[in-house]
């Protein structure tokens, strides 16, 4: 008990009396942690952006203008019954022309042409949302096979190309993203490992003196391991206290940028607090302890 008290006392004494070394070490840990958290944020934003783009790609089935609502609802029900379909929205002729006018409200030439025509040239349609975006091609193939006299057009060739491209891009972004995250985390951990080794290198004379006055290995190692715990705890606490205000500032910009989409980075970090910061604490602590053990061992050899 007395030894434990002394180890904690020596550790705190060392942290305070070598305050610049402490500040530098914690700053390096902070930068590494901040980089990792920024990477997590970027990854979340990119995932949300891809999801938003995917939502924009709709698969539409254009129907003959003279089709009755009852026939359309029957077809809609038939399509919606498939397990691969998440939702089927009915867009009436009127809704289609309203959206069209809204879309081209600043283009007087188009609006004038529409007026000249004197009637609604647009067809009613069914907008189909697949359950899983990766199965879009299968959904398109199934839609092609539906035999119904009310279907006017089922040319999905443009959509199929776009869907394929988006799926390819998403896959590549995932692969590259994972590689970057791996490299980044590895680099950060190496930086942390070296920061601790440098911190202990500056204590090599003290370790030598501890040996010479008869300190046991327990007494030599423990203050440094305890300091590693304090460094980790302080850096994780600081990163939490800096990162949450940063996310609070970022959130309104993201909401503006992704208008109409549910993107909330802040709530993601709040919901996964222990997973994100608990894991970071444990990983950095383990690296710090390993670095401390190796570094102290180098100078504590009898």
């Amino acid at each position: 008990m007395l030894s434990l008290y002394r180890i904690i006392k020596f550790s705190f004494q060392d942290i305070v009396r070598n305050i610049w070394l402490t500040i530098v070490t914690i700053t390096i840990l902070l930068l590494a942690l901040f980089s990792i958290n920024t990477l997590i944020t970027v990854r979340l934003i990119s995932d949300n952006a891809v999801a938003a783009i995917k939502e924009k790609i709709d698969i539409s089935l254009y129907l003959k203008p003279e089709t009755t609502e009852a026939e359309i609802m029957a077809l809609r029900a038939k399509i919606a019954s498939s397990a691969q379909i998440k939702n089927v929205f009915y867009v009436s002729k009127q809704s289609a022309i309203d959206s069209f006018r809204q879309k081209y409200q600043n283009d007087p030439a188009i609006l004038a042409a529409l007026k000249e025509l004197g009637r609604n040239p647009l067809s009613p349609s069914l907008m189909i949302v697949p359950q899983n975006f990766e199965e879009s091609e299968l959904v398109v193939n199934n839609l092609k096979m539906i035999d119904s006299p009310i279907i006017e057009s089922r040319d999905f060739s443009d959509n199929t190309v776009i869907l394929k491209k988006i799926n390819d891009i998403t896959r590549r972004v995932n692969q590259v993203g994972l590689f970057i995250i791996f490299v980044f985390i590895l680099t950060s951990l190496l930086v942390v490992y070296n920061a601790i080794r440098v911190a202990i290198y500056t204590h090599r004379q003290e370790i030598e003196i501890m040996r010479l006055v008869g300190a046991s290995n327990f007494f030599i190692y423990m203050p440094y391991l305890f300091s590693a715990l304090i460094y980790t705890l302080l850096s994780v606490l600081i990163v939490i206290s800096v990162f949450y205000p940063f996310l609070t500032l970022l959130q309104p910009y993201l909401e503006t940028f992704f208008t109409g989409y549910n993107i909330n980075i802040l709530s993601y970090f709040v919901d996964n607090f222990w997973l994100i910061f608990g894991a970071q604490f444990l990983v950095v602590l383990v690296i710090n302890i390993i670095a401390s053990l190796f570094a102290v061992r180098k100078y504590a050899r009898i």
Partner: protein
Amino acid sequence: MIHLENVYKSYSNKVKVLHNVSLAVKPGEFISIVGQSGAGKTTLVRLLIGEERTDAGKVAVGDWDITKINRREVPFLRRQIGVIFQDFKLLPKKTLEENVAFALQVSGERPAKIKKIVSSVLKIVGLDDKKKRYPSEVSGGEQQRAAIARALVHQPKILLADEPTGNLDAINANEIIDLLLRINKFGTTVVLVTHNKDIVNRLNKRVVTMEHGQVISDQEHGKYLL
């Protein structure tokens, strides 16, 4: 108190540091080991504190056969041998008092006992009024006196002094030697490793001279020969 029998030590096959060294030091003796740089004096000290191992031969300090000592026993050996060095080896971020107390803290002594012993040894070396200062705030002589105080806290039977005056001026060097003589009068065996001719000649005590890793002379009231 100290027995070396046919001790051999080399750092590689080519560099032979100690060659068939035999030496016996009686309890309460004051012995100076002299020799030029590279003679093997410091290696001898390192063997005595368990920092180095012999290639052959036997080294015994008190009841400890150091050639057979377990690594876990080394800290206990070091608590029984006081050692001082040329560069003082004080912890720079601890005050003189904390430096002296540290040697007792690592051996698990109670705070009340530490306070009593530290106060007593600091008075012996004349540093009671400077105990709250850091090593950088006192002179070299005072730093060496603090190192001696630290070496004395376990009331060692042997005090090894490896070039203790090497970094000091003549006045401070003489003060340190006087302090070592006083400690020797209390019954502590003192082994002084030095190449300071004036000090050795002034002492008029036993002198062991080493050259090329061998003992070439051992005089009861000797002088510096080299």
